[in-house]
């Protein structure tokens, strides 16, 4: 059951009148003294898959709810296809929303759930039935139309919710942690299916999640949020490999943070002093702050057979742990704890515990960033 049931090569639906651009201008939301979203500027281009990624309380869900119209913003403006929608109630915004627990109507069958939006739009009975069946077919549930939500598994409910949100050709799709309730395997499968479906329909998506793997796997662009503000935004690998702050680096995955002092900055690159590890040439994005560090992802550290000048150092192996697909080595070097991760297939029992080793890294995989904490 691991094959994708959402077919990508079905005829894409007719595009809605608008192109599906979402724009937030200086949007702010406060509850009394508490600022949930702070002067947010954000644009989702037509057909773009944008993920709001952040921990709970970062304002990502509030932001989405303001786009959907369920929350009023305190100031600023939300535009869909260039038109302000600030005073439009949710039902007139023409956005497909998939909620965290799907929020399917429990007393309606899957087909009736999908039909609902068309019924509200007074689409004639036969036409809406046909369109609902088509939408269910598109998510691979053509034969499940008669079932009630409680007779469907989590993944099937998720698909019904998706079909329901897409059946009326919305301007854009808003997904609020839609896979939080699924187990890991099903979640990965659904990620791929949603991505495929989104591409084939060419629909804009605003996606909210706290799961960085999910954001990496699906997004055209990740917008990292913290305390109601955008801290960094960019393509997934760009944000992952070139975080601006230690907080972003750690939120997006494991990393080695080595405090440093900047010696020289030359546009894209900088020379830094890593204390006990000597000097190194690293990537620089021009982030400004009080204290700096260099971030190197564990998988970007490599064992080296010999000493490397510049981007490398001598280290002492502390432990090696086999995690299945990968092996995690813990090292100490120049007073720092380092983590090195490599594929188990590349890893042989080359080193004795407590052994002296050499490690190196590529200059463009070491990122200069600002230490916030």
């Amino acid at each position: 059951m691991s094959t994708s049931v959402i077919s990508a090569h079905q005829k894409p639906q007719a595009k809605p009148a608008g192109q599906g651009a979402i724009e937030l201008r200086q949007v702010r939301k406060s509850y009394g003294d508490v600022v949930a979203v702070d002067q947010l500027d954000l644009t989702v281009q037509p057909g773009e898959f944008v993920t709001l990624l952040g921990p709970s309380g970062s304002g990502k869900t509030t932001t989405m709810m303001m786009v959907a119209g369920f929350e009023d913003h305190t100031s600023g403006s939300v535009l869909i296809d260039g038109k302000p929608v600030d005073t439009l109630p949710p039902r007139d915004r023409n956005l497909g929303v998939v909620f965290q627990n799907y929020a399917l109507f429990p007393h309606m069958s899957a087909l009736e759930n999908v039909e609902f939006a068309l019924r509200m739009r007074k689409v004639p009975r036969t036409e809406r039935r046909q369109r609902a069946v088509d939408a269910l077919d598109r998510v691979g549930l053509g034969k499940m139309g008669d079932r009630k939500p409680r007779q469907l598994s989590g993944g099937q409910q998720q698909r019904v919710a998706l079909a329901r949100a897409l059946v009326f050709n919305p301007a854009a799709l808003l997904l609020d942690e839609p896979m939080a309730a699924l187990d890991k395997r099903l979640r990965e499968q659904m990620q791929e299916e949603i991505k495929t479906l989104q591409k084939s329909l060419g629909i804009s998506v605003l996606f909210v999640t706290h799961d960085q793997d999910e954001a990496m796997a699906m997004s055209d662009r990740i917008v990292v949020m913290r305390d109601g503000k955008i801290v960094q935004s960019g393509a997934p690998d760009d944000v992952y490999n070139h975080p601006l702050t230690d907080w972003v680096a750690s939120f997006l995955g494991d990393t080695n943070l080595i405090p440093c002092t900047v010696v020289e900055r030359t546009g894209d690159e900088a020379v830094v002093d890593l204390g006990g590890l000597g000097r190194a040439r690293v990537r620089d994005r021009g982030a400004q702050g009080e204290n700096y560090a260099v971030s190197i992802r564990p998988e970007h550290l490599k064992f080296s057979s010999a000493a490397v000048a510049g981007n490398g150092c001598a280290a002492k192996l502390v432990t090696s742990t086999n995690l299945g697909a990968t092996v995690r080595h813990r090292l100490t070097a120049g007073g720092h704890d380092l983590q090195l991760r490599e594929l188990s297939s590349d890893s042989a029992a080359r080193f004795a515990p407590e052994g002296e080793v050499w490690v190196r890294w590529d200059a463009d995989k070491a990122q200069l960033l600002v230490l916030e904490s």
Partner: protein
Amino acid sequence: MKTTSPKHRLVALLSLPIFLFLVIPTAIVVPVALNDSRYITFPPEGLSFAAVAGFFADKAWTSALTASLQSAGIAVVIGVLLGATAAIGMHGRKFTGQPAVVGLILAPMIVPTVVLALAFYQFFIAIGMVGSILPIGLAHAVIATPYVYLTTRASLAGLNPALVRSAQSLGAGPLSVLRHVYLPIMLPGLISGALFAFSVSIDETVMSLFMQSPAATTLPVKMFTDIQFNLTPKIAVSSALLVSVATFGLLLQVMFVLRRRSTARMLPMAAPAQT
């Protein structure tokens, strides 16, 4: 079902006297009503429907029955409207003064009926609304509302607030949300609330007594006055009638609950494990 274990037998043994104590005094009116006698006697001397026929032939009694049904009708309609509206309006919301509002809705359950009766009596006299069943029905609606509110609120507790939002995002206006989201979920609570409202009104005596008039004498009031001056088996007949109505209502509710349970059992959770 297994009922043979010693534990179950003990529970049954202990429950039986309590059950009998609860049921016998109520059920005893039925044989008395069907007694072949011109007076209220027990044990019954023979089976006869004369008293029942006499009850329905006596205009004073049938109009009392009609008055009771009318006031119950008013109480149910208004009680359901007010109670359900309050439950929907406060569902998933928190606002300043909410406990006070809830307290106000529930107050008629707590305030002694005789106090309410006096208050309503004076109020309806003051606005000149006397001599009809309407003030009695309205007063009954006030004491019926908290029941409807409580049962509807309990039903709505299971409503996922995201359902309302998803309906809105799919294009539903307020009325469609009410019809397609709230109504199906609160229907069981609404029905039992309506049954409560009905039985509260049918049973209510004190307020009806205060506001009675020749044109508006409810069944309990008629019984009450007849017991004092004119003790006939018709009183037992009307009692038996009230007991039957209550039993019927209860059975209706039990059937409703059982039907829902059995449909739930026939459609078990997520039959297919995989997608």
